[in-house]
């Protein structure tokens, strides 16, 4: 999508709120993470899961759509590191692409992408073209490349070679396992969280996540305070 107002400020981890219907049905916008920024083009990748994404998948080339964004104050930190591990599961792999591009040249990067099976593996070529230290593609059933969970391949590599940051995006059970591992090994870890959203800008307080703040538990909001949080701070 050509959207210079969005691409000029967009940071890795941010998302867009797309209006999918003019009729008011479905009622809410669809929050979708940014996959890539290239000049004034912004790319998103989504799976058709329901009515909203189905309508979005039928938008014709050349048509204008109503988008709010880039949204989210919690983003992946792009800076100099020694070694980083970037780990994605399924649809969660896509937002990590822009991050990987921006980290290129700033650190050694290992990327671990896990998918259910061969049929849902996407973006492999794009990640390959960035040219990272190591790219592992794993499928749960072994129908493509490595068999097993992405996290296990990451753990094995980290045991041999410590990293100073983990970036993760994917299904909640995977993120929980990564949070646990990062805490046990004292590795700073940023995770991108998902929650059902209303407004996308922090007004409706719908997408609440429990966060530790000065020793107290408070609810923060994925859309405004996230979607990226430090794993140690969030209880999800």
């Amino acid at each position, binding site marked *: 999508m050509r959207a210079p107002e969005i691409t000029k400020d967009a940071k890795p981890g941010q998302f867009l709120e797309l209006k999918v219907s003019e009729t008011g049905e479905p009622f*809410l916008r669809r929050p979708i993470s940014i996959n890539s920024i290239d000049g004034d083009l912004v790319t998103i990748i989504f799976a058709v899961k329901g009515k909203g994404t189905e309508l979005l998948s039928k938008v014709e080339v050349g048509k204008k759509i109503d988008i709010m964004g880039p949204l989210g104050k919690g983003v992946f930190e792009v800076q100099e590191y020694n070694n980083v591990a970037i780990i994605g599961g399924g649809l969660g792999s896509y937002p990590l692409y822009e991050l990987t591009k921006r980290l290129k040249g700033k650190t050694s990067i290992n990327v671990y992408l896990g998918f259910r099976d061969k049929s849902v593996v996407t973006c492999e070529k794009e990640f390959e073209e960035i040219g990272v230290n190591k790219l592992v593609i794993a499928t749960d059933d072994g129908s493509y490349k490595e068999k097993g969970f992405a996290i296990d391949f990451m753990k094995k590599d980290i045991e041999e070679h410590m990293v100073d940051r983990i970036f993760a995006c994917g299904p909640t059970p995977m993120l929980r396992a990564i949070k646990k591992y990062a805490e046990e090994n004292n590795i700073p870890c940023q995770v991108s969280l998902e929650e059902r959203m209303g407004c996308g800008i922090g007004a409706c307080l719908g997408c609440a996540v429990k966060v530790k703040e000065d020793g107290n538990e408070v609810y923060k909001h994925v859309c405004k305070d996230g979607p990226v949080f430090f794993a140690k701070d969030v209880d999800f």
Partner: protein
Amino acid sequence: MNTQVNLCGIKMKNPVTVASGTFGYGREYADYIDLNRLGGIITKGTSLKPRMGNPSPRICEVPGGMLNSIGLQNPGVEYFAENDLPWLRKFDTKIIVNACGSTIDEYVELCRILNKLDIDGVELNLSCPNVKAGCLAFGTTYEGVKEVTSQVKKVLTDKPLIVKLTPNVTDITLPAKGAEDAGADGVSGINTLLGMKIDIDKKRPVLANNTGGFSGPGIRSIGVRMVYQMSKAISIPILGMGGITNGDDAIEYMLAGATAVSIGSSNFADPETSIKTIEGIEKYMKKHNIEDINSIIGTVQMN
């Protein structure tokens, strides 16, 4: 062309406000619209002490709108007065604070504080369906509404009091009369309708709190009907709301008897809904040669 209305002493430049809980304390939407254009802003439900709110999931989409069970998460009245109110006051719009509590004492204590703040009015939330204690407990009967309203009136001496009513009753005119008889300056409604959505794979409700308030275009016809019923039963002004998405919807509420209206969850679908509603009202007035918007209030002709 006059779009000014007087909602129980609150003189607004136009009848369009934004509904409590859908607009935070205004900051989030200031990036998207000019708050100066609004007739008024009803703040997020605010309590005496900070409230943490309910666990997630707090919202889900349903046909015709959405369910929410936020649980009145808010930073408390002290924080609001120090941090949000001075900022809100920079805008040329009326500020009405939505006040919520769990006991009559809490409502009274809160309104004692609100009475001294630089605000234009108080909307008493007797109708939140998502908080177990208080709120809804007082809001469903004539006696309950009358009791809490009259206690609050004793301390809220300097601000207009609007009582927000729930549609989760058999006859909304009864709590509305309770508010009027206790000296309320106006009523507002409807709040959300209690709903539930079940995830059929998990065989559990989607919302962590199991049930939530239904809002959106799907409740509009219920809201219009209830505003009409109230307008026939009471003589204090009504702030009408429920599923308004544009000027035409707002006009429906005004014909039914609302002096002013609130835009609720449609703010989420489109942050410009309130502005488009103001423009839509003006367009309607031009089309029908209406000089003064007040001339249409409650003028629906029944079949």
